[in-house]
């Protein structure tokens, strides 16, 4: 089943320290997504 996980990103970013810049948070979430494909 295909399902777009993009709507989860704002919620996942809340797991990260609030002071991290937006682009750092995006990179970490991208890394998490990518790690799940390995």
């Amino acid at each position, binding site marked *: *089943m*295909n*399902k*777009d*996980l*993009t709507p*989860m990103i704002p*919620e*996942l970013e809340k*797991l990260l320290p609030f002071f991290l810049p937006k682009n750092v948070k995006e990179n*970490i*979430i*991208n*890394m*998490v*997504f*990518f*790690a*799940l*494909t*390995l």
Partner: protein
Amino acid sequence: MGNVYEEKRTLMSNAANHVDTHQMPIASMAQTWAIAYANSTLDECLTSLDKEIEVYGKHLLDMDFDSVFIFGVNRPLNAYKHLGFAPYFASPDGVTLQAADNTAILQDDEIERFTRDPSAFFREVAIARRYPALQQDSPKDLEAMKAAAKDLMAWLQAGKKRDKALKKVYQTPALASGIPTSPPFDQYLCYRGFQKAIVDLRRRPEQVKEACEALVPFFTATEKSYPDFPWVMNPVVGATYLNPKQFEEIFWPTYKKVLDSYIEKGGKILVALEGKWGKEKYRFFNDFPANSIICFLEDDDPFEAKEIIGDRCAISYPFPVALLKHGSKEEVIEHAKQAIDKIGTTGVFFATDKCLMSPGDVNPENYRALAEFCHEYHV
């Protein structure tokens, strides 16, 4: 008495830099075998990072290696528990880590979309397809993803604590640190599945090249600079299955871009040449600056490799696991002595021809004796 950890770091670094070490440095190739040696299980290792470190470190307290290839569980097994599918899992022996068969995520009619934007394809299609827990309705899908993400991030950050223990407790450096890199084609092979990827090489080589190109940014260097030691881990699975023409035209161009990105920033790459490559393929490593590539050999002839690439690349001598398992201590020492006398002690070190994954892969007494001999036999 000097700092043992620093002495070992220097020894391995000298091997990579073609400085004569006058003895044969030796790397422990114990992966999950280390768990069996400590009478533990993968499940027990997953209970805490401290426990995992204690279990993997046991063999390093009993055997004197100059370095360790991999230290700790190298897949985020705890994260998979939340997702309903585990691409890697413990075998019934409780120790050996196995890869699942059905991990392909890229169908025939999706290659173009994947190539256009791999990240979007992962996020919008592939990840939920692979993990049933993410197919649930809200909020169960989000809760599963949050739990997995927490464990994944903990796993990504575990390296620092492992390195600290290796330095302070076990006085043995890890050969590589940080996030491993990969040839883009290896990842294509993983996403398509082995059978389909091999057929693609003949039926749609241009599409394979384009997909590999799209994957390059996922594997290029991310740090501003890299140290002389430890090295960047780079296992290579796919090359052994390609003929020299496929290797040169499809595999190599994007792989070289990945390796160049690290070397330009001072990095050295530990390339694990899985299987048998043949000189027609590994000779390509001569394209890189001297002392930037360290080749871990499996089934390739180390004496031939030394001749073809040994002036520019350090190589591991692939000590036969079968001899360490079935041979006598005397046979192990004799093999080691002959190997050292023939191949020398410049730009070379001992590893094994296979990683140690399962209980009984080697006789621990032989492994200990080999490490001891390496330190006693000076040339």
